[in-house]
């Protein structure tokens, strides 16, 4: 009986200590703004290294890898209605690590890796018709590149070609279906970098090459097609922005780099202020740490989901409110 009592005391003591410790750590978290709300209502289509784009209030995502198979299925998430629809299958070979971007209301997915080869083929998606059309192939194969649409052109650059990391950029012109090499990127070769676009300017950073996470940060002006170096991602001692396989997105004039890989999957989130060229840490992603996730953003709302942590492939989706106080209970 006495023995049992002492156990009870021990357990109560340990529980109290755990409460004190956990309340201390949650006080620390309060320094960072940003709240997360889980939007997943079903076990969706778990996959990582997905590609997609957001057009109007619909986030499109497809292809990817689920741990067993390379995928060709393609889904749309309705931001307002908070539901999914399965759209026309991607017509190319199933793949992951492709790029996806939007140019003037049309979606594009291409390049990537099918489990054997790095790929060059590219396709456009018409949201109104729910149809895919093959377009001119990217001149050089690659996976884990960056892709973005700006100033009525598509841009694809960096990545891994099967032998080397790359630093070349290509510009796609939808009016004559051609790719032209774009010179002038002064950064290092890399794979699995991230971009976000604020007021028509495209910011590029992060990524990895030969095991080194890169610290340089660039802005691309698509009207002059020129790159300018910004402050490095380790400019301040407290910065921990460098990583690879992250997601980049823009909400209300700020850029964000979230989740990714840094010797393992991470869930940290950093906010970029283009007016001061400074970074600020936000509340970390509430779900599991993850890399190769996807972000849908219409400029004012953003959703992050899918991806993987180690060999666990994820299917959940969270909405991020960068200006709100963190609440654990919602």
């Amino acid at each position, binding site marked *: 009986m006495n023995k049992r009592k002492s156990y009870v005391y021990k357990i109560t003591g340990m529980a109290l200590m755990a409460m004190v410790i956990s309340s201390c750590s949650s006080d620390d978290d309060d320094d960072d703004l940003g709240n997360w709300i889980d939007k997943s209502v079903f076990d969706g*289509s778990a996959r990582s290294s997905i590609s997609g784009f957001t057009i109007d209030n619909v986030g499109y995502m497809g292809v990817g890898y689920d741990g067993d198979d390379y995928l060709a*299925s393609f889904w749309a998430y309705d931001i307002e209605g908070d539901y999914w629809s399965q759209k026309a299958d991607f017509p190319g070979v199933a793949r992951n690590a492709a790029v996806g971007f939007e140019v003037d209301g049309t979606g594009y997915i291409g390049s990537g890796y099918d489990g054997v080869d790095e790929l060059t083929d590219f396709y456009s998606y018409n949201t109104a018709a729910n149809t895919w059309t093959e377009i001119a192939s990217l001149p050089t194969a690659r996976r884990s590149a960056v892709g973005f649409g700006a100033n009525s052109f598509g841009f694809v650059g960096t990545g891994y070609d099967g032998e080397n990391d790359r630093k070349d950029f290509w510009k796609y012109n939808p009016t004559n279906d051609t790719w032209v090499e774009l010179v002038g990127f002064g950064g290092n070769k890399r794979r699995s970098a991230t971009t976000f676009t604020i007021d028509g300017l495209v910011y590029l950073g992060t990524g990895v090459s030969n095991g080194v996470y890169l610290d340089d940060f660039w802005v691309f002006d698509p009207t002059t097609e020129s790159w300018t170096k910004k402050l490095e991602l380790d400019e301040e001692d407290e910065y921990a922005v460098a990583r690879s396989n992250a997601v980049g997105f823009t909400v209300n004039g700020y850029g964000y780099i979230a989740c990714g890989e840094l010797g393992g999957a991470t869930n940290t989130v950093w906010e970029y202020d283009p007016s001061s060229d400074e970074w600020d840490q936000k509340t970390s992603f509430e779900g599991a740490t993850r890399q190769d996730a996807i972000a849908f953003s219409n400029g004012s709302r953003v959703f992050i989901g899918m991806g993987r942590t180690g060999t666990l492939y994820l299917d959940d989706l969270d909405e991020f409110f960068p200006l709100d106080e963190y609440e654990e209970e919602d």
Partner: protein
Amino acid sequence: MISTAKYWVVIVLFLALGFGYSIYNQTLTNNRQIFHSQIVDLNDGYGYQIMKGEKIVILQKFIPGFPGKQKFVTEKEALKTAGLVISKLEDGKSPVLLPSDLAELNISTTVSH
């Protein structure tokens, strides 16, 4: 005579057990049925939505995976496709429908995949 009576008792008991188990099993699966489907009438065809309680989780106005805007020709085809999605969800699988799934369900499509 006695042995035939014993024989019947065993048969009846066996049937009762089987019947009881099937009822028990049914209530168990009913408990798991958190998803249900509704057919959407699109005038010139049918779609479906997968609901979790009152909430739409998947809205399918067109046949999943197929290019263009092909609707289900009959309500029955939409219903059996939605049924397959629900069974995948209830098995904890991805709700994705592959071309082979739709071929197995004999879904009529105007344009081939």
